[in-house]
C-alpha cells in the first residue's frame, strides 16, 4: 500500500511541477486562464483567448517545462545508474566524458556554423557519444573492461575534452562566438521548442526506458564483477546495456540543455536518503525527482532576475543547501 502511494506521488509530482510552471514568469497568468488555454487547444473549444497567451502557454512555457523535466530526469537516472554500476557514490552522469564531449562538440559547432541550432545539437550529441566510446576503449584491458579502468578512461577523456573546450574558447571570436560558448556551457532551457523535444527525446526515451527495464540488474552489478558473475550475470552484455542507455540519456539531455551539473550527482543521493538504495525504487524516484527539481529551478531562474540566470549556476545554488538540510534531517540515510 505504502509502495503504491509512493509510486503515485512519483508520477504526479513532475506533472504538477510542469503544470505550475505554466503560470510563472514575466507575465503571470491566472489559473482559469491557463486552464482555458489548455482545454481550448485540447478540446478545440474557442474561448476567445488572446493569441499572446496561447503562444505563451503552448509554445513557450509548455515545451520548456517538458524539456526541463526530461533533461532533469535523464541526468538523475543516468547518475544513479552509473553510481550503481561503478559502485561509487561520487560518480555522476558525466563520468564517462559525456558532458565535456558534448561541450566540445557544441563549441566546435558554434565556431564552424556560427551557432546554427541543429548543428549544435548534432555535434554535441555526436561528440558526447564519441567521448563514451573513447572512455570504453581506453578502459578495455585484455578482453574485459574492469570498472576502475573504465572510470580512469572517463577521467582521461573528460580532461582531454575540457582542454579542447578551452582551446575552442581561445580561438573563438571574442564578441560573438565566445559568449555563446560560455552560455551554452552554463546550461539553459530558454531556447526550448517542440522539435528539440522530439529530436532529443529519442535518445532520452530509449536511454531511460532501458535503465528502468534493467534497474534490478544494477543492484546485482553493484556487487562487483566477480560476485555479479558468480550470481549469473553476463557482465559484458549487462554493463554494456547500462553504459549505452545512461550515455544516450545524458547525451540527449546535454545536447539540448547545455551542461547542467549537480543534478546527476546529487538528485540520486537525495533519493537514496528518501527511498533507500534498491535501484528498483531508486531509478524511478530519481527520474521523478530529477524532473521536478530541474523544472522548479528553471522557474526560479525565470523569475528572480530580469535577465535569465543560467541553469548550471542555480542548480548548485539551490540544490546545495537543500542537500545539506536533507543530510541533517535523515542523518545520512544509512551511509
Amino acid at each position, binding site marked *: 500500500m505504502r509502495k503504491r502511494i509512493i509510486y503515485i506521488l512519483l508520477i504526479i509530482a513532475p506533472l504538477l511541477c510542469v503544470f505550475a510552471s505554466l503560470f510563472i514568469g514575466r507575465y503571470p497568468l491566472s489559473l482559469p486562464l491557463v486552464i482555458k488555454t489548455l482545454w481550448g487547444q485540447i478540446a478545440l473549444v474557442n474561448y476567445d483567448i488572446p493569441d499572446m497567451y496561447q503562444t505563451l502557454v503552448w509554445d513557450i512555457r509548455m515545451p520548456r517545462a517538458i524539456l526541463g523535466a526530461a533533461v532533469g530526469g535523464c541526468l538523475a537516472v543516468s547518475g544513479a545508474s552509473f553510481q550503481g554500476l561503478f559502485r561509487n*557514490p561520487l560518480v555522476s552522469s558525466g563520468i564517462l566524458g559525456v558532458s565535456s564531449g558534448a561541450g566540445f562538440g557544441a563549441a566546435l559547432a558554434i565556431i564552424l556554423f556560427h551557432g546554427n541550432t541543429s548543428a549544435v545539437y548534432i555535434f554535441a550529441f555526436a561528440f558526447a557519444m564519441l567521448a563514451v566510446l573513447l572512455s570504453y576503449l581506453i578502459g578495455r584491458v585484455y578482453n574485459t573492461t574492469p570498472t576502475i579502468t573504465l572510470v580512469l578512461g572517463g577521467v582521461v577523456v573528460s580532461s582531454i575534452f575540457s582542454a579542447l573546450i578551452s582551446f575552442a574558447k581561445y580561438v573563438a571570436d571574442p564578441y560573438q562566438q565566445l559568449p555563446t560558448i560560455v552560455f551554452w556551457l552554463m546550461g539553459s532551457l530558454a531556447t526550448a521548442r517542440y522539435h528539440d523535444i522530439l529530436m532529443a527525446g529519442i535518445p532520452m526515451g530509449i536511454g531511460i526506458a532501458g535503465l528502468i527495464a534493467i534497474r534490478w540488474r544494477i543492484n546485482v552489478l553493484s556487487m562487483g564483477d566477480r560476485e555479479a558473475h558468480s*550470481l549469473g550475470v553476463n557482465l559484458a552484455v549487462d554493463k554494456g546495456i547500462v553504459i549505452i542507455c545512461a550515455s544516450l540519456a545524458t547525451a540527449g539531455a546535454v545536447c539540448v540543455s547545455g551542461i547542467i551539473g549537480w543534478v546527476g550527482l546529487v538528485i540520486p543521493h537525495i533519493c537514496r536518503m528518501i527511498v533507500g538504495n534498491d535501484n*528498483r525504487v531508486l531509478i524511478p524516484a530519481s527520474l521523478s525527482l530529477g524532473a521536478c527539481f530541474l523544472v522548479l529551478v528553471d522557474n526560479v531562474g525565470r523569475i528572480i532576475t530580469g535577465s535569465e540566470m543560467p541553469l548550471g549556476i542555480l542548480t548548485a545554488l539551490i540544490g546545495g543547501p537543500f542537500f545539506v538540510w536533507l543530510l541533517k534531517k535523515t542523518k545520512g540515510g544509512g*551511509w
Partner: protein
Amino acid sequence: MSVLQVANASFSYERQSEKIFEDISFEVGQGEIFCLLGPNGCGKSTLLDNILGVNHLQQGEIRVMGRDTRTLKAGQIARYIAYVPQSHERTFPYQVIDIVKMGRAAYTGRFSSPSAKDKEIAKEALDLVGLRHLRHRPYTQLSGGEGQLVMIARALAQKTPVIVMDEPTAHLDFKHEMVVMETIVKLVKTTDLTVVMATHFPNHTFYLENNGIKTTVALMHNKHFLEVGNPTKVLNEHNMRTLYNVNTKLMTCPLDTSTVLKQLVPVSTLNGTKEEERNAYVR
C-alpha cells in the same frame, strides 16, 4: 557420481608464461567438503576463480554435475555453483533481504526483478543461517560475522548443488569463526550441499571431520597438490613443515567417548627458510 570434477587443470594469466597451477585433478562428491590449504599466493583463489568461470583453464577441464563449465554461460554456471567471497566490499546500504534476493539473479530475466516466490526463497535462506530477524536492516550496519552469514544466505538462495567459499572465516572474531563453521556443518548435513573452500586454518578441517562430514584436504604447493586425503592422514607435522615452513605439534585430546579433538599447534617458523626457498628456485 561426483558433483564436481577437475581434471588435469593448468592455468596462467594472459601474457604471463609462468603457470599459477599445473596438472591438478580432484573430485568432490555430494555432501562432501573439499578444503584447499596452502600459503598466501599459492593459487588457491585462482583455482576457485576457474571453478566459478571467472577465469578459464588453459588445459584440462572442470565438470559440474557432468557438464563442462567452459560450455556454460554465467547464468547457467550460477545454477550449479554459488560463491561466498573472502571479503565483500559493502558499498551501498542495501537491506539484508535485498542482498539475499540477488542470489536469484540466475533465475530472473535481465529486464525483470525477483518474484514473490524468490522473496520466500530468500527468507528461507536467511532462516538457514539464523538471520531472518535482521532482514530489513541495512547490511552495512552488520558485524563482520553477520555479514559473512548474509553472503552464505545469498549463496543458498542460488539453490546450487555446490558452494565455493574463499576463506569464509577470514577477519572474523573468535565466536563468529565458530558460528560460520557450525553453519557450514549444519548446511552440509541438512541439505547435502557440496562445499569447496580455501582456508588458512588446518584445524577447521579437523573440526569438519569430527562433525561427521566427509572432508578431503588438498595441500597446494609449488603449483601442484602435495598431498590429498582426509585431514587425519594429510595434516601432519611433516607436511606442515613442507607447506608452510612451520614447525608444528599435533595435539590430541579426547572430547567424549567417540571423538578425539585434534589440533595442529604452530611452534616456530623453520630456520633458514629463506635459504631453502632460494635453493628451490635455483633448482
